[in-house]
């Protein structure tokens, strides 16, 4: 065990820090609005040009071949510098690992560099009106069109994050009408401007148009739109969701930065009588310790992964921990703000509303607790 960073890791951190401090834009409008999204894309392209968009990817696809530890360091520095949300996250963090694992060489070459540059913007097409936590209830269909050499997709996807601003969708469709549940699904990659595709954005809790419904009416896609094997979409998709639940979507850096901002908020407000309340002080300390716990649990996990351990279902614990920590961080901040918490321009209230989505998206925390009980503790399914 050596908990010091190596010289190479320190040098990488220094390079990240210097560039991010000089280049991170401040005060961008929300990336979940039309105007904001365009400005965020400019930032994503600046990241790509400096080779910071996808540091963990191989160089040939626009990355730096960074180790998992270096990727964590980049994330810490990104959020420490106040870097904005990554509007490309669903592509680079959720789809890309699956393309690396299951894509053909042609798919990798076609998809990954354009994704890294922000030329193609990917949204996730898992959920449907009747398939949320019960994802295996997917009804959208893929019908074989042998004459045209492809598939015809019909159905509806919903709760699609930033769907109204993206160019492509990755999703699951039922390719074997006789199969049930998680069998007979296929993973498709679909351009949103294809004929028969309708995308309708709608508002989230915080008022931003961050959600979309996607309607597919006999949308044709060629065979090269299939990721992995036909009818094997469930296992291909599970590889993605396990990545999503775990580290990549929300690494510790984001919460270390948030807990640091909370500490600053408390210090600045310490003269206010309400903020001197020992329960608020305790809530700040708890948030700080929990963010540290997530950081060190991640270093332990990444070391295990580097040694070849399969962490699999344990990522469900990570997802619950960061999502519920995020809520606690924001609750503490609102407590410190007292009556000012309700003010319209208060970023902590905006953040609180977003934090409340954490226990819902990427598999609700109720489902994650089932996964922990069944696959980590070994309790019976029914």
């Amino acid at each position: 065990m050596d908990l010091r960073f190596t010289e190479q890791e320190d040098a990488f951190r220094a390079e990240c820090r210097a560039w991010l401090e000089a280049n991170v834009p401040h005060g961008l409008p929300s990336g979940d609005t039309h105007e904001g999204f365009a400005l965020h894309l400019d930032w994503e392209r600046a990241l790509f040009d400096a080779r910071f968009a996808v540091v963990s990817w191989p160089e040939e696809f626009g990355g730096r071949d960074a180790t998992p530890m270096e990727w964590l360091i980049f994330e810490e520095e990104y959020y420490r510098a106040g870097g904005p949300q990554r509007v490309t996250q669903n592509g680079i963090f959720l789809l890309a690992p699956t393309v690396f694992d299951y894509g053909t060489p042609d798919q990798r070459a076609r998809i990954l560099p354009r994704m890294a540059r922000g030329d193609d913007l990917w949204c996730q097409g898992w959920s449907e009106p009747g398939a949320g936590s019960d994802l295996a209830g997917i009804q959208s269909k893929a019908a074989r069109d042998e004459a045209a050499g492809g598939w015809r997709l019909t159905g509806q996807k919903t709760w699609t994050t930033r769907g109204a601003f993206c160019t492509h969708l990755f999703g699951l469709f039922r390719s074997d009408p006789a199969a049930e549940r998680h069998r007979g699904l296929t993973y498709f990659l679909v351009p949103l401007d294809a004929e028969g595709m309708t995308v309708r954005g709608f508002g989230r809790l915080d008022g931003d148009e961050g959600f979309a419904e996607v309607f597919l009416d006999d949308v044709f896609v060629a065979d090269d739109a299939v990721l992995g094997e036909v009818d094997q979409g469930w296992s291909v998709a599970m590889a993605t969701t396990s990545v999503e639940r775990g580290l990549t979507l929300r690494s510790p850096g984001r919460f270390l930065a948030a807990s640091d901002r909370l500490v600053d908020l408390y210090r600045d407000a310490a003269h206010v009588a309400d903020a001197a309340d020992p329960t608020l002080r305790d809530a700040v300390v708890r948030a700080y310790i929990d963010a540290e716990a997530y950081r060190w649990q991640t270093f332990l996990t990444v070391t295990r992964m580097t040694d070849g351990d399969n962490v699999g279902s344990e990522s469900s614990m990570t997802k619950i921990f960061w999502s519920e920590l995020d809520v606690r961080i924001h609750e503490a901040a609102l407590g410190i703000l007292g009556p000012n918490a309700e003010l319209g321009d208060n970023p902590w209230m905006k953040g609180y509303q977003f934090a409340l989505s954490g226990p819902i998206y990427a598999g609700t925390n109720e489902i994650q607790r089932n996964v922990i009980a069944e696959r980590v503790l070994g309790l019976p399914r029914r």
Partner: protein
Amino acid sequence: MRFAFTDDQLAFRDAVRDLLANECPPAVVRAAWDNADGRSGAVWGALAEMGVLGAGAPEDQGGLGFTLLDLVLITEETGYAALPEPFVEHAVVAVPALPDASAAAAGQQLLTAALGGAPFVPYVASADLLLTEEDDVLVVVSRVGLQIEPESSVDGSRRLGWVEWDAAEPVGDAVALAAAFDRGALGTAAQLIGLSRRMLDLTVDYVKEREQFGVPIGSFQAVKHHLADARIALEFARPLVYRAAWSSAAGDPEASVHVSMAKALASDAATLAAQKALQCHGAMGYSFEYDLHLYMKRAWALAASWGDAAWHRARVGRAIL
């Protein structure tokens, strides 16, 4: 950055784990509630023979020159077994503090410790030497110099005593005193991690077997979610304990804060595990004849000693706020 134990550290952990699994089953813990000294009998000698008791002493005193990092996994296993002994006080706190620990390493002397304003001392009536504090320095008091008033604990095996003494011998300055206290807090945190694991293991086994409504109660979501919460608390407390052990061994200037983060989360994780374990056991867990309470009561006692969670969070708060 490499956050993993060495093969040697894991092998030593496994040897201690096996020994305690064989020699310190629940019956030994239960027997300690009723015997004269609250102790484990032959187990202590077996640990001395294995070199565990003096591992923190230098090799020329019969020890193994172990750092806190080398000791942390072993200490966790003594928690898992609920070893009824002042293991942390003896092996983790006092042995590395004594000018000559050879008799303690050989198991010929029993050491205990009370630092950080602790009002009473575990197993003091059995101890040959007490490591404690006086005027901000670390001192030892021999058994003949102690006046002891026995006190009871919620954990019937933990024999406590209020103590007074006339003459004490200085063995370390204020820095050594602070380091010894931190070793006690971290060793106790490691035992709380072990206790959390034990209570979770017991409960997982129970809810797989126990049937109601014609199915194992472990198939019900309400039960699953209790145990998932206990498992999550353990998952995120444990790395902070190992990290604090590394910081202490490496002489990190922030080590005290790291120890406090570890003890705070370990205390909370064990308290939560105890409550969830009891709830999932139902009335069975509430029975004195069933073993769960042995581990719960140890967890409560240790969560409260060497600084409870609130005390350690306050120490973190002074460092960061």
